[in-house]
């Protein structure tokens, strides 16, 4: 475990690293191109249908058309909806953030508008005002199937494992609900299901891959916003797509989680975004916590020694006194 690469940094073949023999299938994943997502949520429904997940809440959230909220133990695909004004010329897009939702604007994002302001800010005429054209971003989030998956690393039971496809899957019959994977995930993906105490997340449809089917969500996606395939191919495709969009003047197009040398060694499910990751609820620069584990153990060891030393010292002094 002092071999850095096993805990962080680029890792060409996670499946092999996990001990899958030569000739295992190539690593597969998702390239989610949010620039063509139409927010139909077919992916959410297809996932729940295929995996027989329970309905988890009939609440109107007022987050644009998103009434799902976030990924969770019973929601393995989540489509985010962001309404904003993209400035006519450069500058940061203005998150319209559906007035009244979430905590009041924090310093630094005073740009989030409120109803009142809007009425005033609005320039006359029907043309899009200075604030720029209305943008409605939609993005289908999912488990990233990290190259270095913190959830898997910290799982004490081995319930979470690396499949021959390089994906990360929970074995429900082994999980004892210790909950360690939950705070370990830098993306806030995996969670414990209250009713049965086990941890759940996207399996990349392990059961479908096994029989040569593509994952249900990708299958259902009408616009190919969710593209499934060998990760290498997807990465090339993604690079071409970004170039294409830049050609068309979409300067804000950027890939997220595609690079093998990022904090988690690259995501098995990566994205093409049109704004900063956090706007979609994604961490801007996630790092797998176990990257620092060796150093943690070293500090703990020293601390442990100091316990021993402290105790010993307290007595040694006495011993001398006695003499």
């Amino acid at each position, binding site marked *: 475990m002092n071999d850095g690469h096993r805990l962080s940094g680029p890792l060409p073949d996670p499946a092999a690293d996990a001990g899958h023999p030569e000739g295992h299938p190539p690593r597969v994943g998702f390239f989610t191109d949010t620039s063509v997502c139409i927010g139909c949520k077919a992916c959410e429904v297809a996932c729940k249908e295929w995996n027989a997940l329970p309905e988890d809440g009939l609440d109107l959230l007022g987050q644009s058309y998103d009434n799902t909220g976030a990924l969770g133990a019973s929601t393995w695909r989540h489509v985010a909806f962001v309404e904003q004004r993209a400035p006519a010329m450069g500058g940061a897009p203005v998150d319209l953030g559906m007035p009244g939702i979430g905590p009041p604007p924090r310093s630094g994002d005073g740009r989030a508008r409120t109803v009142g302001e809007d009425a005033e800010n609005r320039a006359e005429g029907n043309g899009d005002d200075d604030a720029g054209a209305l943008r409605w971003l939609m993005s289908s989030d999912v488990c990233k199937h990290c190259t270095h998956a913190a959830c898997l690393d910290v799982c004490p039971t081995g319930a979470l494992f690396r499949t021959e496809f390089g994906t990360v899957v929970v074995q429900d019959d082994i999980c004892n609900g210790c909950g360690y994977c939950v705070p370990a995930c830098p993306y806030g993906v995996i969670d414990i299901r209250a009713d049965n105490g086990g941890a759940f997340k996207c399996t990349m449809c392990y059961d479908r891959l096994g029989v040569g089917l593509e994952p249900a969500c990708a299958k259902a996606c009408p616009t190919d916003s969710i593209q499934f395939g060998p990760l290498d191919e997807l990465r090339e495709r993604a690079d071409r797509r970004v170039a294409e969009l830049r050609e068309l003047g979409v300067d804000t197009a950027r890939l997220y989680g595609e690079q093998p040398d990022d904090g988690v060694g690259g995501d098995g499910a990566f994205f093409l975004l049109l704004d900063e990751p956090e706007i979609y609820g994604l961490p801007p620069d996630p790092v797998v916590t176990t990257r620092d584990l060796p150093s943690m153990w070293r500090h703990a060891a020293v601390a442990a020694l100091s316990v021993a030393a402290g105790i010993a010292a*307290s007595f040694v002094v006495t011993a001398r006194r006695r003499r």
Partner: protein
Amino acid sequence: MRHGETPNVPEAATSATSGRSYYGRPILKQPAWKTPDAPLYLFLGGLAGASATTAAVADLTGRPGLARAGRYVAAAGATASVGTLVHDLGRPARFLHMLRVFKPTSPLSVGSWILAPFSAAATAAAVSAATGVLPRWGRTVGIAAGALGPAMCTYTAVLLADTAIPVWHESYRELPFAFAGSALASAGGAALLAAPPADHPPVRRLVVVGAALELAAVTRIERRKDITAEPYRKGRVRTLLTAGRVLTGVGAGLALVGRRNRALSALAGVSLLAGGLCTRFGIFEAGHESARDPKYVVRPQRDRLARQGGR
């Protein structure tokens, strides 16, 4: 983001969006561990660990009274700590799956492999001490437990630090020492209550060392500049940590002044134990706080990117 990203993304975007998230929702999930189970687990583990080692050393340095007391505390602590762990599981019936594999990358796995033999040894030692059966064997396992004791005190620090929770992860250097110190102090406190006064002098020194270590480490954690330490300085967490600091301090003080006064020593013991508890609860709470507010995730990551000159 460093990678695959256009340099011509407007500079403004960074400042404008930093600290923001999707409708202000958390980016991380709340730790699934429950209170009081989890913080108690941290506390008891430390108490038991330090007590076991103390008992062992006391035994070797010919202080049977203190040794016996230490074994009792260690056994009780270990058992209770196992109890809280099992109770905190989503599926307690599968507790033994913890020992299905040994995973160095999982502090909980490593911890379980420490906790299991430790609690077995500690309990056996206590039983033998109590019943007087197999005294020699009893001493040996007692010493074995003592050997595992220090690890018991600090692996729980790694348990917290090895997560994506900013307050915990970012203080992975200090946490083990904070836990070590608080374990010593608590063990000392327990000893002041349970051990014969004759054996108190080493215990007092133990307490001072522990309290000093705990206070130093915790203070270092709180004072850390970057925003991820903010939760330590706010609201309930702040109250808990302050309480912990005061109680531990007072406890240590009483321990010193109360040399010949049983009552004062007892009071010192209680105060030290309470202090240890507050510290553990405080640190655990801080984790939840920093998972709740996305800015603790976004800001530091943004700053890191800025430092790396990603844009």
